Each structure stands twice: as structure tokens, then as C-alpha cells.
């Protein structure tokens, strides 16, 4: 089969499932991440700093494993881009960490409680004038020669890494017949605020001490996060935007807090993108079982619901038929289990939840360098054996 035909076959298989249909086989989408570097024998330092090696690691995986889509390169970011602006909140192998250590995000209250009003009045202005200088050495003095130069360097680096990703996508399609699994990226407004601005402790205290500010800030972020999802996908509507979801997982918030602070703005972002034809990959990290009924309020097929530790049987009962589900081979099993155990898990998973289509097989969470190659091979072998309709 030619690469073009192969691409079409895989793309149809994947998008049929996304839309709730029953393709010829259960599509295989694996969030392989840093495992790809380990498998290709490339250090994490090289993956973070060398764009070519970051892409070469994927080539090695695509040559050896039979999957239907690929999520991108092992490194989320080009570390050089963050070095260009002196990012203080990230640590990379080869700089602060030894060469094979996974990157680290240093959480802190980078936005203070007193910043809410300025943030709500004009988030972009506040980010440029207050936030960026706080978290980047090179922006410490806004308007200075050094800060201006860093803005140019940062922008150039962003364009270089985005350009390299686009070329890589075209190369995987042409040379391996491999489509991408996602196009674009967005977040729940509460996570935008809680992950990198207020931090966990900050936002959890805000729920009691300044609930109105939290609500106003998440509302301001709705339009921004819709725009961000569309902009990062270049307007593509054939593939879902990736949305990793964090603080909405159980038991971070009580049901009332979830209903009040987490859900309305997240729902508005998903519905806003869906109006533009854009589906969301609802990557529900952790356990979301208590919130399934609420999630079912979303328009049919506006999301693909990814299961990590959510009860798969309940997810199927509440969301099945209206939304495609994906998941959930446990990462612990993939890193520490035996191929036979992986195969058994996949067999049961497909048998119980994939019979009527609208199912994509994946690991429960994003994988790390410790996953065993023979377990990935076992997952794929079992998915083909038991996942052909």
C-alpha cells in the first residue's frame, strides 16, 4: 500500500471513531512522550535542545510500531526557546538537571492575590507587564534593551520550533503515512488560573477568600482560551484540540465548587470551539467519575472523553453513544507489568467497551521514559488481535 493510501486509511479509522462511528479497527493512539527518546537511544537533553533529534526519535518509533496516529514529538517544548528568554519556572536536562532527567515545572504563586483586578481588567497587558518579567530573567526590566532583545529572540525561537513541528507533521504523513492525533491546544480557564498563575495552594485559598475574583478571572479567560485553541490549530477542524485537565479531577474540588468555579467556564470554552466546528480531546487526568453527568450536558461529539482513572464502566454508561471514549491502559502496567498482563488488560478493555465503535485505545496517562518497549508491542498486538471489527 502506498503511503498516501495508508495515511487515508488511518485518518479515516481515527476520525470515524472521533465522530462516534465504528471503523474497520479500533484506532491506536499512544501518548508515548519521553519513551520515544529512550527507545531511540537519544538522551533527554538532546530531545529538549535539538529539534532534529526530537523529530528523529519519532521516526524510529514510526518505523517499528504499528499505530494509527501520532501525537507529536517527545518534548513538549524546545528548551532553547525558554533559555532565550531566561525562563525561571522550567528546569531542563543539560542545564539545571542531569542529561537523562525529565523536565521539571517549578510551581509557585507567580500571580499574587493582589494581581486579580489588573488581570481581570486586561489579562494580556498584565501578562506582558507583570507576569513575564516575574518568571523570566531576560524580561526583568520591561522596555530595557535586554528585555526588548529577548522578546525578539523568544519570538524567533517560537517560530523556529513551530516551523519544525509543521515540517515534521508533513514528513510523517509523506514518509510514514502517519496522521497527527491532535491539532491545537487549549485549557480549562480554572486550570489556566490554577496551574501557572496562582498555583494550587493560591487558587484553593481563593475559593474561600475571594470567590468573586476567581469567577471573574475564569470568565475573562473563556474567549481567550477559545481563541487559543483555534489559533494553535491554525483553524483546523478535522482533529481535536488537546485539553489536559487538572484541577477538576476528584477530589480537588467539592461538587458545589466544581459546579460553580470549574465547569461553567470550561463548558463555555468547549461549546465556543464546537460552534466553530472544533472538537476537544477532553484529557481527563485523574478521576472524573463524580462529574460524568455534568459532562454529559455537552453537545453530542463536541468532546472525546479520555479515561485515566475515571470508572470506565460508568463513563461508558453515561457518555457512550454520544461521545467517543479513549483510554486507559495503566502507566504502571506499561512500565512495570509483563507483556502477558498488558495483553490481558487490552483484551478485556476492548471486549467490554469497544464493541460498538467510538473507542480509541491509549495509555491512561502521558507515558514516560520508564515504559517497556515489549509492553508497547504487546499493547499494539492485542489491540489488532482483539480490536478488529
Amino acid at each position, binding site marked *: 500500500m502506498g503511503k498516501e493510501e495508508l495515511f487515508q486509511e488511518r485518518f479515516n479509522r481515527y476520525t470515524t471513531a472521533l465522530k462516534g462511528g465504528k471503523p474497520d479497527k479500533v484506532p491506536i493512539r499512544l501518548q508515548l512522550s519521553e519513551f520515544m527518546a529512550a527507545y531511540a537511544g537519544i538522551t533527554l537533553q538532546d530531545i529538549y535542545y535539538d529539534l532534529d533529534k526530537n523529530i528523529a526519535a519519532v521516526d524510529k518509533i514510526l518505523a517499528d510500531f504499528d499505530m494509527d496516529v501520532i501525537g507529536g514529538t517527545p518534548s513538549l517544548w524546545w528548551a532553547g526557546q525558554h533559555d532565550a528568554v531566561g525562563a525561571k519556572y522550567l528546569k531542563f536536562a543539560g542545564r539545571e538537571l542531569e542529561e537523562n*532527567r*525529565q523536565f*521539571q*515545572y*517549578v*510551581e509557585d504563586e507567580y500571580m499574587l492575590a493582589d494581581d486579580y483586578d489588573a488581570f481581570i481588567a486586561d489579562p494580556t497587558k498584565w501578562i506582558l507587564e507583570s507576569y513575564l518579567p516575574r518568571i523570566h530573567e531576560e524580561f526583568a526590566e520591561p522596555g530595557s534593551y535586554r528585555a526588548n532583545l529577548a522578546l525578539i529572540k523568544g519570538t524567533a525561537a517560537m517560530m523556529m520550533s513551530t516551523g519544525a513541528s509543521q515540517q515534521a507533521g508533513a514528513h510523517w504523513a509523506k514518509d510514514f503515512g502517519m496522521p497527527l492525533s491532535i491539532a491545537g491546544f487549549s485549557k480549562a480557564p480554572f486550570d489556566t488560573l490554577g496551574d501557572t498563575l496562582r498555583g*494550587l*495552594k493560591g487558587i*484553593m*485559598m481563593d*475559593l*474561600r477568600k475571594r470567590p468573586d475574583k476567581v469567577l471573574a478571572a475564569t470568565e475573562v479567560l473563556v474567549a481567550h482560551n477559545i481563541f487559543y485553541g483555534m489559533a494553535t490549530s491554525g483553524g483546523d477542524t478535522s482533529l481535536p484540540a488537546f485539553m489536559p485537565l487538572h484541577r477538576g479531577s476528584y*477530589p*480537588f*474540588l*467539592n461538587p458545589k*465548587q466544581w459546579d460553580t468555579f470549574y465547569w461553567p467556564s470550561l463548558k463555555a470554552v468547549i461549546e465556543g470551539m464546537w460552534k466553530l466546528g472544533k472538537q476537544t480531546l477532553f484529557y481527563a487526568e*485523574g478521576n472524573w467519575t463524580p462529574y460524568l453527568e455534568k459532562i454529559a450536558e455537552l453537545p453530542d461529539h463536541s468532546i472525546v472523553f479520555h479515561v485515566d*482513572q475515571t470508572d470506565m464502566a460508568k463513563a461508558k454508561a453515561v457518555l457512550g453513544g454520544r461521545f467517543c471514549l479513549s483510554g486507559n491502559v*495503566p*502507566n*504502571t502496567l506499561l*512500565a*512495570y507489568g509483563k507483556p502477558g498482563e498488558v495483553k490481558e488488560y487490552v483484551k478485556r478493555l476492548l471486549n467490554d467497551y469497544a464493541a460498538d465503535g467510538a473507542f480509541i485505545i491509549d495509555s491512561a496517562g502521558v507515558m*514516560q*521514559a*520508564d*515504559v517497556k518497549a515489549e509492553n508497547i508491542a504487546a499493547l499494539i498486538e492485542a489491540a489488532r488481535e482483539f480490536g478488529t471489527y
Partner: protein
Amino acid sequence: MSEKLVNLIADLQEEEALATARQLIEGGTDPMAILERCREATEIVGKRFEQGQYFIPDLLMSGEILQEISELAKSRMKKGITTGYAGKVVMGTVEGDLHDIGKNIVAFFMEANDFQVFDLGVDVTPEKFVEKIREVQPDVVGMSGLLTVAFKAMKETVDAIKEAGLREQVKIMIGGAPTNEQVANSVGADAYAKDAQHGIELAKHWVTSC
């Protein structure tokens, strides 16, 4: 009034709880008795969390209230009086992992249950664990991790403790979302704690049966 303090803390009424604690101290109540009330309140908070009534924000809030009150009480305590600890615990998030919400909650509950806690923070190397164990001679070592890569670090830490000849002196528990009994066995720990309450029960059991 000290009964009222327990309820105010357990109900997370920050300002009223602080005001009541202040009144008690100024009225001559023994600061140690206030700390005991704090411990009782934590027990209620822990039960409510276990029963699904309380969530993470509530635990963080109770932590903040207790910290304020215990600082107030400790500032009034006569110097030289050391409290009798139930036991000593050295804990940290293992090397390569930075997730600390769970570890902080466990540390907080351990302290509230009269354990003396030496929290080494995140990304803690096996050497740092060994060094601290040698220094403070704890009863219990707690290792936390949210990433599967942490398992390797947990095993390396247990191995380092063994090599240092300290393994027989401590009980080791692990915790964190991807961990389970099987992981505890394979890294060479004594037990897996499914949540903070369970971790405290384990530690109490170990200390009393040693």
C-alpha cells in the same frame, strides 16, 4: 470554650477560630491544651475528607488555620518544654518528581497526630534520605511520587538505605496516585498507604508495635 474551638477549626471558620484561640490563651489556657484541641480538630477534618464531605481546598484551609493557631500557641509556650512525640518521620517526594500536594497533606496530618516530621521537600535524592535518617533516627520513612519514574527512585532510595545499614531501623511506606501494594513490594518498602489517614494508621501501628 475549648470545645467550641475544635468545632470552629473543623468547620474551617478561620477568623472565629483564631479569635477564640486568642481568647483562650489570654484567659490563661495552657498552650499545650490548645495544641491538643488542634489535633482533635484535625481528626475530624481527616474523617470528613475520608467520608467525601471535605475536599483538597478544605484540607489546605484547615492547614492554614492550624498553622496560625499553633504558631500562636507555641509563642506562649515556656522554652525548654518539648512535647512528647508519638514518633519520628522522615518524608519526601523522591528524586526526579516534584509533586508535593499529597506529601504535604500527609506531613500535615502526621504532625497533627504528634509525629515529629522531617519533610525533605521534593526531588529528594537517596543520599539526602540516608543522611537525614542517619541524623534523626526516625521510626518511619515516607516516600511519595506521582510519576511512574518515581518507582525507580523509590527502589534506589530503599537500596541506599539498605547499603547504609539503616534498613532494619526504619519502616518504609510509599504513597502517590500510581502506587499500590505491588509497587511497594517491588521497590522494597514495607507498605503502601492509599491516603493520608491510612498512612497515619500505619505509622501509629508501627510505632506502637515496635
